[in-house]
Structure formats: structure tokens, C-alpha cells
């Protein structure tokens, strides 16, 4: 009985693993094959055109791939820094101090946590246009200072690890509150910061809705926008080796980071949820 159940569970798991990996295996194989080879159908063996496809993609005058990759990095790193610093600062403000609006501020942030950004998109776009900030990363990076989800993660982490004694000890040593935060609290939050850095980076790297509406200058395109343009192009005339290579390049950075840090990421997923 237990043997049968064990067999069933492994069989199901292997099926799901194949389902998850197969699309990316095809991607990997086809990125190494030339257009004509791709058209001939799928093969389990790589071709010899990887370098060629790579060169063609980055030299394609219609596809500013390098520019888009740099843009994606600027956007993601800028957002990560803002999200981490200000979410932790806000969490610290509410966790460590007693003030009249403390409870209200906490409840308010929880209330707005689940509200989708798309619903304020209209007002946001008009605001950005009034500020003359279309085709700039500023309207993405500055608003990242208010990130309720990361705030919630940080304050939950502080509840379990950050004791008030540490702050009081720093006070006695003559540290002012701001210095205490920067020099003592931030370093203590490193594990939580690392988890949130990854999630924020991935989320921003992959984000498509707002960037597509505000970054219409080709010099400001990010990778998801480039992919949507590729989808809109007449793909029949397009070199499929390049198509697969571009898809591969755009997911490569997060996959590499994920494979290195997967242990912490998987642990972070359950940490972010609520306890049953």
C-alpha cells in the first residue's frame, strides 16, 4: 500500500517536473539552432548556431537588445534599492516607536496591500505626463518607496528578530535614531533584505503593464516591451533562431540568480504568506 502510494507520488512529481521543464528545454535547444533547422521540427539535440544567433540578435538594428537589457537592469536595481530602504525604514518607524497614529498607519498599509496598481493607471499616467516624465525611469523608481507587501514582510521579520534593547543600547551610546537605523538595524535585517531583493528584482524585471504604457521611446524599452514588439512583428519573416535567443536572453538573469539562491527563495515564499 505505502509502496503504491510512493510510486504514485513520484510518478506525479516526475510528470509535473517534465511539464515545468520541457518548454524551457525546447527553448534552450532551439536557441542553438538556425532558422531552417527550427522549422524542421523539434529535436532533443542542440544545433551549432548558438553564437551565430546571439550575434544576430544583438546586432539586429530593429531590436535594441543590449540597450533594453541595460534599461531592465537600471529599472530593476533602482526599484530594488528604493523598495528595500524605504520599506524597512517604514517598518522600523512603526515597529520601534510609539506614536498616536501608529496603529492607524499599520492598518492603512495592510488595507492598501492588495489593491492592484492597474486601477490607478489612468490617474498615474496623467500625473506622469503633467510632470513631463514619460520615457523616464523616475516614475517607476520613486513610487517604489511605498511598497506595502515588502513593508509587511519586513515588519513581520522585525517582530521576530529585532529587540528594543538593541535600539536602547545604541541610544545610550549616543547614536541618533537615524544612525541607529542605518548602522544597526539595516545590517540586522540582511536575511530579510536578501529575500525581498530577489522578489522585487524578479517582479520589476518581468513587469510589463506600466512600462509598456509609459516607455514608448525605443531607447527606453525594457526587455518585456521588446518581446511584445517581437510578437507584433511579422514573425513569418523573422529568424526563429533569433526569436528563441531573445526569449532565452530575457529570462536568463533571473534563472541564474534563482538557481544559485533557490534554497532561500523557496524558504522566503512561505515566510511571506500568512500562518494558517
Amino acid at each position, binding site marked *: 500500500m505505502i509502496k503504491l502510494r510512493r510510486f504514485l507520488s513520484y510518478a506525479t512529481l516526475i510528470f509535473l517536473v517534465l511539464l515545468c521543464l520541457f518548454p524551457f528545454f525546447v527553448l534552450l535547444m532551439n536557441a542553438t539552432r538556425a532558422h531552417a533547422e527550427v522549422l524542421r521540427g523539434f529535436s532533443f539535440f542542440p544545433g551549432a548556431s548558438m553564437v551565430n544567433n546571439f550575434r544576430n540578435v544583438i546586432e539586429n538594428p530593429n531590436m535594441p537588445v543590449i540597450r533594453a537589457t541595460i534599461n531592465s537592469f537600471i529599472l530593476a536595481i533602482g526599484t530594488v534599492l528604493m523598495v528595500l530602504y524605504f520599506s524597512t525604514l517604514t517598518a522600523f518607524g512603526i515597529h520601534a516607536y510609539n506614536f498616536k497614529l501608529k496603529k492607524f498607519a499599520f492598518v492603512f498599509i*495592510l488595507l492598501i496591500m492588495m489593491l492592484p496598481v492597474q486601477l490607478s493607471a489612468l*490617474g498615474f499616467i496623467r500625473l506622469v505626463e503633467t510632470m513631463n516624465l514619460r520615457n523616464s525611469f523616475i516614475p517607476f523608481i520613486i513610487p517604489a518607496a511605498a511598497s506595502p507587501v515588502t513593508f509587511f514582510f519586513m515588519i513581520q521579520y522585525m517582530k*521576530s528578530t529585532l529587540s528594543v534593547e538593541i535600539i536602547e543600547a545604541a541610544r545610550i551610546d549616543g547614536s541618533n535614531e537615524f544612525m541607529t537605523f542605518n548602522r544597526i538595524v539595516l545590517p540586522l535585517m540582511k536575511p530579510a533584505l536578501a529575500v525581498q531583493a530577489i522578489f522585487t528584482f524578479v517582479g520589476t524585471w*518581468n513587469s510589463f503593464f506600466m512600462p509598456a504604457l509609459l516607455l514608448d521611446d525605443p531607447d527606453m524599452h525594457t*526587455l518585456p516591451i521588446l518581446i511584445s514588439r*517581437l510578437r507584433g512583428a511579422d514573425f513569418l519573416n523573422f529568424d526563429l533562431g533569433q526569436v528563441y535567443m531573445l526569449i532565452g536572453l530575457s529570462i536568463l538573469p533571473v534563472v541564474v540568480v534563482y538557481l544559485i539562491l*533557490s534554497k532561500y527563495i523557496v524558504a522566503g515564499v512561505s515566510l511571506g504568506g500568512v*500562518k494558517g
Partner: protein
Amino acid sequence: MAKIKAKGVSYAKWGYIFIAPFFIVFSIFTLYPVLMTFYYSFFERFMIGLNQHGPYYVGLDNYVAVLTGADGSFFSSNLWQYFLNTLIMWLLGFVPQIAASLLLAAWFTDLRLNLKMQGFFKTVIYLPNIIMAAAFSMLMFQLFDTIGPVNATLLRMDVVEEPVRFLSSTMGARGIIGLMNFIMWFGNTTILLMAAMMGIDPALFEAAEIDGASPRDIFWKITMPLINPILVYVMITSMIGGLQMFDIPQILTNTSGGPNNTTMTLIMHLNQHLFSRNFGMAGAFSALLFIGMSALSLLVFKTVANNAASGGPGH
């Protein structure tokens, strides 16, 4: 005297200083845009050629236009069609997702089953969640294309005689979108449910086993009732995420929501209005969605607030 004064130093102002950036930024970039979105919903604005006309105050006209169809009746509105599309595609991913996740989480946490290589399995099933949805959609579009590998394989194995045009059929297009949502999210749900199941007191399982309960009984009568709160949380957050569905159908169908608008989601439609600068309609549409989603958010808030009040982080 001096000592008393020093003791009386209030640090409250630092609390305000530290939370100020969050609230200032939130007010400018979220609160104000939300209010303006509602405000714009009462005005008409349109383009004739390159000239912007309006804004003209039109009262609730935009809302009437969003809520009624071409024949003027309430239920023929596109809104319902797009809502239904979104809901169906969410369910196509969510139903298998919750089933698979419950099964996997129960297996992973079953000590008698003692599954090996759990780290590897968890790493792989969570992997699709971090993949750029736009890139994944482009990939699936290529795979299911008439000249793509799926069709090539079906042809070679003589399953079909001519290429299947998956994306030209409603079932095919919705099915692929549901499949992608499933692949991207079941790992995430499995991990959340596992955390919930590992929080159950093992003595309960041991007692049930001694009483001769089968694994099926244990699952339905002990595990399920005890993880109910997190199950509700997973379901509502997934529904909120599902209602925001955009990237996958947008890229997969090249913005068309085809075939025949059957994969057009609510947010894709909002995006159309925003893109064509039809701000009055976009405003009314956003405002209506806002009200609906706020109700759902409130449910999540209740779950999270109860939990935050009752103690530490979920580990």
C-alpha cells in the same frame, strides 16, 4: 531635574519621520492618481485627428456606456464578456492548481511516505513562477504555432493530418492560457500549503493513525479543516491576481484577445482604453473594477490582519 527631563524625551517624532516618505510617496503616486481616475471618469475626452477634444463634463455617461452593450441593455455589455473570459481562464488554471498543490503538499509533508529529493522538486516546480510572463507567452506562442514543435510532433506521430491552429479556437487559446497560469503558480501554492500543513501538531496525525484512519481520512478530516484559513487566503489572493490577468493573453494573442474577443481580459480592455487615450471610458472602467476589487481586498485584509494581530511571521 536634568535626569527627569532626559527620561521624558519622546521618540514619537522619529516614528513620524520614518514613516513619512512612505505616506508622501503613496499620496502623490497612488492616492492622488486613484482620486483623479474617479474624477476623469465623469468627463469625456476624445481625439479628432491629432486634436484633443474635451474634457467635457458628462456626468455618469461613461458609466452607462461601460455597463450597457450595443443594444442598450445591461447584460449585453462587453464588461460581462471580459469578466467572464477572465474568470474562466483563471479557473482553468486555478482548479488544477489547487488540486495539484494540495496533493503535492500532503505528499511532501507525509512522514511515512518520506519522499526523497524534496529540495530538487520544490526548486523545479517554483521555477516557472520567476519566468517573465511576456517571454513565457512568446515561447508558448512559438511552441503551439502552426509551424511550431508541438504541431511538428503531432504531424510526425500521425495524430493529426494538418497543423492544428490552437490559437484560432476559443478552447485552444483559453486552454493554453489556463495551462500557463497553472504551470506558473502551482509551485507557489504548494509551498504555501506545505507551510500550513507543517504547522499542524504531529500528535493529531499519530493519534489518527493509531485509531486506524486511512491517509484519505486523515487528509479530509484533519488536514483540510486545519489548513482552511490559508486555503481561503490562497484562493482570494489568487482570484485578485487572476482578475489582473494581462501579460500572458496580451502577448499570446498579440493584444487582440482573439479569437473573437474570447481571451480579452478586463485589464487588457482597460489597456486598450489607456492606449487609445480614451480617458473617460478608462476612468469609468477603472472605477468599477476598483469597487469590485476593493471588496475582495477587504477579505484578504481580514485574514492578514487577524494573523498579524495574533503573532509572529509565518514560519
